[in-house]
């Protein structure tokens, strides 16, 4: 009789131990996924921010005529000598829509297109929000879309805000928690008559 209770007790103890170890293993896996998604979104945010800073801060560099050709809340077209080699680049940024990103679980993700000359590149950063705002020399916001030349010439500062989320949910396939990073910066291109800068 005593050995029977021993077997029952040891089975319970084993069950508790197995559950504990399984739970720890689950936690380790979840954290691993979470960290991986955090790293990916943060890396993407830094890379996209660097790209935008690189391009936008050079708007109008070595350009004598019209510098910004079109400006909207989700896109912009401008001229700039990006490589400082006296070759003027015609650069366009515009956001796509969610149907243009395939094979991701995040329903809000849309691509960003960057066209330089005739070459267009679709960039899947995990963007779920993008807003570009434009300000004049008195920091008054200019309403978008801006297509009239006189209005385009008023642009002196550009504020870019975006949000990047992970393409997959963080915890499980059916979860709706996404790793995310937001970024915002007001860029004041020196070549838009910001001579003090």
């Amino acid at each position, binding site marked *: 009789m005593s050995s029977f209770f021993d077997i029952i007790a040891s089975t319970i103890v084993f069950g508790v131990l197995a559950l504990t170890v399984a739970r720890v293993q689950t936690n380790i896996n979840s954290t691993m996924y979470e960290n991986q998604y955090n790293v990916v979104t943060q890396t993407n945010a830094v890379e996209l921010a660097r790209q935008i800073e690189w391009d936008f801060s050079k708007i109008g560099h070595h350009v004598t005529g019209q510098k910004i050709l079109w400006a909207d809340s989700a896109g912009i077209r401008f001229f700039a000598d990006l490589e400082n080699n006296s070759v003027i680049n015609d650069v366009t940024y515009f956001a796509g829509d969610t149907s243009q990103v395939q094979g991701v679980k995040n329903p809000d993700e849309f691509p960003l297109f960057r066209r330089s000359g005739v070459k267009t590149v679709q960039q899947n950063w995990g963007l779920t929000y993008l807003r570009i705002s434009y300000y004049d020399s008195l920091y008054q916001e200019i309403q978008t879309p801006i297509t009239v030349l006189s209005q385009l010439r008023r642009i002196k500062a550009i504020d870019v805000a975006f949000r990047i989320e992970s393409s997959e949910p963080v915890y499980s396939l059916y979860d709706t928690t996404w790793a995310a990073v*937001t*970024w915002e910066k007001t860029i*004041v291109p020196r070549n838009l008559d910001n001579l*003090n800068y």
Partner: protein
Amino acid sequence: MNTGQILLVIGAFVVLSTLTLNVNASLIKTSTTGLEMEANLDALSIGQTMLDEILTKEFDEKTLNGVRAFLPSDLTPVYQLGRDGAGEQITGNGGVDTSMTGDFQSKLKFDDVDDYDNYTRKAWNPRLGWFTVTVKIDYVDEDFPDMITYWTSFYKRITVTVAQANMVKDFNDNVIPLVMRDLSVYRRYF
């Protein structure tokens, strides 16, 4: 089960529980570090925006509207650094420039770099909440820009400090603020 076996089982549970708690604590710490990095990234963009805004302003109140300063003594003295007159004061929120949309009063009211001396703003981030930004402006030596001077020079150092409760913390759990510096230089091309 005899008493010895029970004690062994209890001992094993204690060891396992301790191990589990340590593993979980370590996992939480790792997750926290990832989130703190996110806060620091946001702080970086907020601080850089602040620096960029300041650097678009005139070097000094005395060089507005094309007026030239030929000597450092032509500039605003150290003890007068800061806002010039009632028109440059931040109104509301106890003098803290607060905005959820980025429409800060400083953009319109301030016209030169040292107006930002001892300036404080609160910038909103939709995921993490309010970030506090403080600014200090000092004259620095033209040959040793790390050395603050108590006399005027053609170099002003801008120090922007950004802090938020979710940023990286030290061993005593105090937030380590992000400090960014840049120089505003009076360009004498005349």
